[in-house]
């Protein structure tokens, strides 16, 4: 009963191009969504978030899009850089305190020079 799913275990993108990571969820009570980035042997690092009252949030090269009707969110990275190579986790919360996060299984992004 995985409520947050990242169906692509891996993604390979050319440097300078756009990286698009996808995430689907099943719980309609989720109202806050986050993306975390994780390097090997380190903990996840917060990247960007979006509240369900918005459909887009942008921070530099990173943009998160939320489609509530489709229960789908995506993370766009443009332009992609070698340092973006990492595992990206999507997470969701059903309470405004964002305290009980439900994570997807992650997508490994590789940026090729």
């Amino acid at each position: 009963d995985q409520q947050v799913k990242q169906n692509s275990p891996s993604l390979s993108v050319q440097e300078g191009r756009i990286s698009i990571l996808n995430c689907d969820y099943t719980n309609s009570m989720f109202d806050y969504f986050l993306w975390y980035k994780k390097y090997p042997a380190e903990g996840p690092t917060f990247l960007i978030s979006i509240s369900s009252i918005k459909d887009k949030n942008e921070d530099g090269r990173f943009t998160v899009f939320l489609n509530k009707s489709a229960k789908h969110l995506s993370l766009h990275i443009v332009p992609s850089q070698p340092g973006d190579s990492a595992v990206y986790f999507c997470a969701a919360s059903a309470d405004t305190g964002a305290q009980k996060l439900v994570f997807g299984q992650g997508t490994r992004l590789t940026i090729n020079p």
Partner: protein
Amino acid sequence: DTAVSQTPKYLVTQMGNDKSIKCEQNLGHDTMYWYKQDSKKFLKIMFSYNNKELIINETVPNRFSPKSPDKAHLNLHINSLELGDSAVYFCASSPDNSNQPQHFGDGTRLSIL
């Protein structure tokens, strides 16, 4: 100036032993968490404490007991270790405000022989 620190980073032990993992945060956060990342790479919440009070307790065996001596520390004690306890355990913390991201430690890799 590490924000969330866990010790030890690696823990190798025999089945049946009792072990502890320590976590400390210097961010002044009110809430701390323990997550388990299993072999399938899912990050799942185990416990959450707010100002030393247990607020989230997921379906976790009684062999796992969190202890919070103060709001900057949340330790995890595991009794009678089993093979299935092998995983990476992450500690995290967040402010006691709504929609604030959680900050993670670098994880403790527990291996049961």
